């Protein structure tokens, strides 16, 4: 009975197995990126980038229909363009990164919605906005796995400068020129992760599988490495539970995954070891030293 509910869907249906594989790939690559987004106070930047990739995906869609390769390529180009333009403007004029990004992503979003509504139907728009992880074919799954692999490899390369730049940017500037390139590479990884999640969860929710796990991890650890591990596990668990929930009920898969993550997040806010509310209300007697 329990087996039938929790494991049955995956042994029985291939599309569920594909969805599970995709969601695990997304968790492995997206959650670490989310942790850095949060620690660099860029959580909403991820959200903004998610909107920025819309026109590229829309153009890809118009040129070749519902071909996910074309949409991914278009999304990557649009995302990189916005990320790099915003980064360059911020670094060369002293305008704050968020302000610079806000202008570019709004322009990009307006362009994207215009393109989709001129040419496509409402169903197309819904698909673009919310994705459909259950409709994933082998090719798409391979693209997702490939993107996740690339993300992890690049993250390993830029890990050290990225950490130092997050803690003490001025120090990194005095010892190395790696800070700027590492930052741009990181923005690129954000875009790749978003486009990746975009096929499963849609533009609006893609960032959810990055930021919510990071928020969860923040309540359980004070150490970067364990934060990243916790975030990955939280994302994978949300993905799995969301798929089961979606299979058993009529909740669409994307929102189901994010809602499960939200529940875990709320539990963490209440009972988390690091700064959780219950822990703060009942801290126990103070220590000796």
């Amino acid at each position, binding site marked *: 009975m329990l087996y039938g509910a929790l494991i049955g869907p995956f042994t029985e249906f291939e599309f569920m197995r594909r969805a599970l594989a995709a969601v695990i790939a997304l968790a492995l690559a997206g959650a670490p990126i989310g942790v850095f987004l949060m*620690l660099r106070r860029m959580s909403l930047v991820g959200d903004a980038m998610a909107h920025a990739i819309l026109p590229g995906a829309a153009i890809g869609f118009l040129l070749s229909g519902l071909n996910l390769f074309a949409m991914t390529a278009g999304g990557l180009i649009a995302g990189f363009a916005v990320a790099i333009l915003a980064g360059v403007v911020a670094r060369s004029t002293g305008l704050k990164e968020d302000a610079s990004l806000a202008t570019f992503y709004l322009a990009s979003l307006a362009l994207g919605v215009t393109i989709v509504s001129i040419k496509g139907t409402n169903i197309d728009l819904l698909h673009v906005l919310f994705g459909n992880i259950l409709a994933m074919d082998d090719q798409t799954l391979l693209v997702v796995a490939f993107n996740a692999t690339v993300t992890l490899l690049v993250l390993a*390369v830029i890990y*050290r*400068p990225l*950490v*130092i730049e*997050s*803690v*003490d*940017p*001025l*120090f990194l*500037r*005095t*010892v*190395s020129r*790696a800070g700027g390139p590492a930052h741009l590479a990181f923005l690129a990884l954000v875009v790749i992760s978003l486009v990746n999640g975009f096929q499963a969860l849609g533009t609006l929710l893609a960032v959810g599988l990055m930021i919510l796990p990071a928020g969860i991890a923040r309540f359980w*650890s*004070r*150490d*970067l490495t364990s*934060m990243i591990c916790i975030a990955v596990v939280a994302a994978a668990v949300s993905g799995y539970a969301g798929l089961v929930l979606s299979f058993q009920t009529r909740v669409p898969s994307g929102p189901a995954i994010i809602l499960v993550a939200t529940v875990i997040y709320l539990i963490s806010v209440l009972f988390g070891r690091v700064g959780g509310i219950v822990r703060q209300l009942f801290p126990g007697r103070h220590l000796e030293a």
Partner: protein
Amino acid sequence: MAALHFHNVTLGYDRHPAVHHLSGEVAPGALVAVIGPNGAGKSTLLRGIVGILRPLDGTIHLGGLDARDIAYLPQSAEIDRSFPISVFDFIGTGLWRGTGLFGGIGKAARDKILRAIGAVGLSGFENRPIGTLSGGQMQRVLFARVLLQDARLIVLDEPFNAIDSKTTTDLLALVKRWHGEGRTVLAALHDMEMVRNHFTETLVLARGPVAWGPTAEVLTPENLLVAMRMCEAFDDSAAACAADDVSSRAA
């Protein structure tokens, strides 16, 4: 060969100078105090030396040192204290010159880091997140990182601000140890007593050099008075500077 050579250096922001027409040399191994009132351009000068601010005019020669041979401790470091990193890892970043992007932290490097932590009196704090440290402890951490950087030129911007006397004594001992090892040390300071007692050479700055030389000769009431009278002039419609090599003594 001088460790540092200033040739008619003007440093500032948006064409407005903060330090005007500074020329001179710092000998290798010198222990130099840079003093002057707030706004005299001390921080600006130090930022110019470490290369994060390009001179508006003139040149600063580092005498063969490249950026990695300089350790810089800024006045108000832009450190994100909430970032989840331990004291050990944070101080370990001082080894960047040796490890770079990928170099591993082996046994030898670990010992080095532990010795640096011990040298600043923070043994036992290795695994603490930097967010839990007090102001004085954080300053000790920053000194430990400078120690690990093993730099020929060490630039300290008001390193003893808001630091208690015990910590100041400990950290000052480190500065003197660096001097003893033949490293060139420049420090922006406000404590005249400390300058008089511990620093061999002094540069009095007031938007331009007021006096520069052996501390005993330079640290006179007259020079300090000139420096204190300096006004923080900032004129939006100022004309382009016409001075050639004349030190501008704003007063």
